[in-house]
């Protein structure tokens, strides 16, 4: 009997898996260009207003940023374990890894929420009145800070949903984790979101701190 994970128009699971992975890589290519818009703008402005960007970068909260980076890196590691375990047939272990990944993601979001709160208390939102930094480039830095982190946060939220989806769909039929490309594809996406954060960490928290 063909697996329930086998979908139209595929004939076998391996073919389906390869194609799904290809599709996800293409999507990640799109995502890189999507964030590329932010990175390009950031680079141009940092080049134009170098000193301002360094000054603005010092105002970020590096503790939140660093802890969050660590949280995401660990979550990526766990996600990786989960998807490998699913391939190896270790379904109970895989089904342990996925919730841990999702919880780590939520820890990230919670910390990010606290950080946003702190930022707002310090009026570090350049659109509103009372923005404390006088340099012209500082407003640009913080504008990019908000756009980049919010867009990243939305990506992470989608990622958490996708990880929970694995958990739910494999509840009655753990074999599904092996047959379906979902675990691998979700894991790719998760790593991507993690990678983007590593770049954002370097661009947001490190300027002016060397």
């Amino acid at each position: 009997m063909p697996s329930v994970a086998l979908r139209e128009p595929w004939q076998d699971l391996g073919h389906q898996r390869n194609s799904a992975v290809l599709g996800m890589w293409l999507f990640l290519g799109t995502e890189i260009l999507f964030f590329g818009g932010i990175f390009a703008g950031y680079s141009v402005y940092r080049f134009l207003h170098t000193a301002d960007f360094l000054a603005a970068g010092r105002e970020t909260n590096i503790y939140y940023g660093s802890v969050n980076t660590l949280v995401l890196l660990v979550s990526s590691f766990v996600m990786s374990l989960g998807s490998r375990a699913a391939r190896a047939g270790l379904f109970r272990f895989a089904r342990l890894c996925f919730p841990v990944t999702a919880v780590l993601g939520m820890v990230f979001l919670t910390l990010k929420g606290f950080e946003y709160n702190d930022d707002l208390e310090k009026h570090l939102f350049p659109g509103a009145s009372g923005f404390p930094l006088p340099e012209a480039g500082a407003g640009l830095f913080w504008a990019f800070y908000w756009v980049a982190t919010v867009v990243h946060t939305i990506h992470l939220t989608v990622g958490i949903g996708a990880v929970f989806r694995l958990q739910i769909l494999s509840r009655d039929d753990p074999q599904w984790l092996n047959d379906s490309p979902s675990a691998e594809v979700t894991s790719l996406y998760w790593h991507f979101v993690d990678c983007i954060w590593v770049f954002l960490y370097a661009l947001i928290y490190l300027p002016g701190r060397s």
Partner: protein
Amino acid sequence: MSDITAGAYEYSRTPSIGAVDNYLTHGRTLRSWLVTTDHKRIGILYALSITVFFFIGAIAMAIVRLDLITPAPDLVSDDTYNKLFTLHGIVMVWFFLIPSIPATFGNFMLPLMIGAKDVAFPRLNLTSWYLFVIGALFTIGCIVAGGVDTGWTFYTPYSSQYSHGFVIPAAAGVFITGFSSILTGLNFITTIHSLRTPGMHWFRLPLFVWAMYTTSAVMILATPVLAMTLLLMSAERFFGIPIFDPARGGDPLLFQHLFWFYSHPAVYIMILPAMGVVSEIFTCYARRRIFGYSFMVYCMVGIAVVGFFVWGHHMFVAGQSPFANLVFSFMSFVVAVPSAIKVFNWTATLYRGQITFESPFLYCLGFLWLFTFGGLTGLVLATVPLDVHLTDTYFVVAHFHYIMVGGSVSAFFAALHYWWPKITGRMYDEAWARFAAILMFFGFNLTFFPQFIMGYAGMPRRYHAYAPEFQIFHVLSTAGAAVLGAAYALPALYLLWSLRRGERAGPNPWCATGLEWQTESPPPRDNFRTPPVVVAAPYQYHSETHGPDYQHRDIERAQGTV
């Protein structure tokens, strides 16, 4: 099968079950259409949606052209005028041209042409259509609410601070529709990589499939940049954060760079599919193998790649450095080379053919004329000192309409007439179709040729009131638009008529090669009753040693393949 196509495809002819069992009769409820994952039905859903948008965009422009008959701004108010041409641009670019050939004929034909059952991700394909519809609803909502007046280019700081229009809904519509085209592109590339039927090697792919492949690559890599650009612009407008605002250290030229990084490749999203269609049709009606198949492929790949490095030619007078102008001018000349080679190859395909002049071929001849003309005026615009004079005038308007409307829309109609029998199983009235093709060609030239002249004389684009000496050209242009409008409306009539009254088409009315012609018309739900196997290169219209034979299609008819 004749000995000419014998050996090209191993095709086992199942006795036709008749019209009962095909993709159209596979579920007849509205719901069966709205939840379909059949690439053919999704293609038709797209076709219906973009037809609606084509007419919305056309009506907007009809009002503009009527207003422009007189130099005084008398028919509508300034704001309405600005909103109308903005609407025309947004709708025609994102809701008609970009999805026109890929999302309709690409969706319908791509799996058929590579011998697949469906695209790689059928549900994602349907999702793409729904995203398109949601984006469309935002745009329609924006029109109903009062419109947007930024021009389709959304230049900052006008869009982010000064415009009173509904900029964010319009941008949201484009943003969402962008994801529809990204997902379509992703789907096509995966399909072409994974679902080619046995024997369909990369260099046996029909050129239309190559066109879809290169187009999809451009969609995937360019569209997200537009999405981010519009997001940044909307964030500046909505939250008041500084991004492109020059008063707060930002740079409006950054917006233009990001915008054109998408919007120039977008031109290739529109023209590459057209090139694919034209390649299929030239070879079919010339009964001659396409000249220089591999060059045609390399040219399309070349256009897709180099097309990413020419965006700055939109900004020669915007204030970028003279060195950047030089580089982008150079790249623009480079990108003209593969297009020129394609034109030569199409011409050479006619050599020693057995040419017949059915309507799809007439549309393609029209394409060749208009595309070549548009391309050559592109050389003029790639030359910096000339572009300084001509940019933002009607010369540019005429140039890109020659490419995007003369080229892409002619090819769209060519594809429509070429594949109509396959899609619907019916033949349309050939005399009417030829008449429409010729009318369209003349209407188009009458509309846009005068714009070259007034553009060179200095008539700026997007002008509601204009100096009286330009009036004669505007009057000619409006007259041409009326002819063009009639030529666009005609096919709607005779094609609809053919749905009921048209002759039954048979699987291969044009005696064309290509797997899509090796199955029934309309195709069954799963495309092929038995999976086809490919054993030779495409376009085997004649044997290696002999040219095409006059009797060719008569033999085919006699043998009942038709």
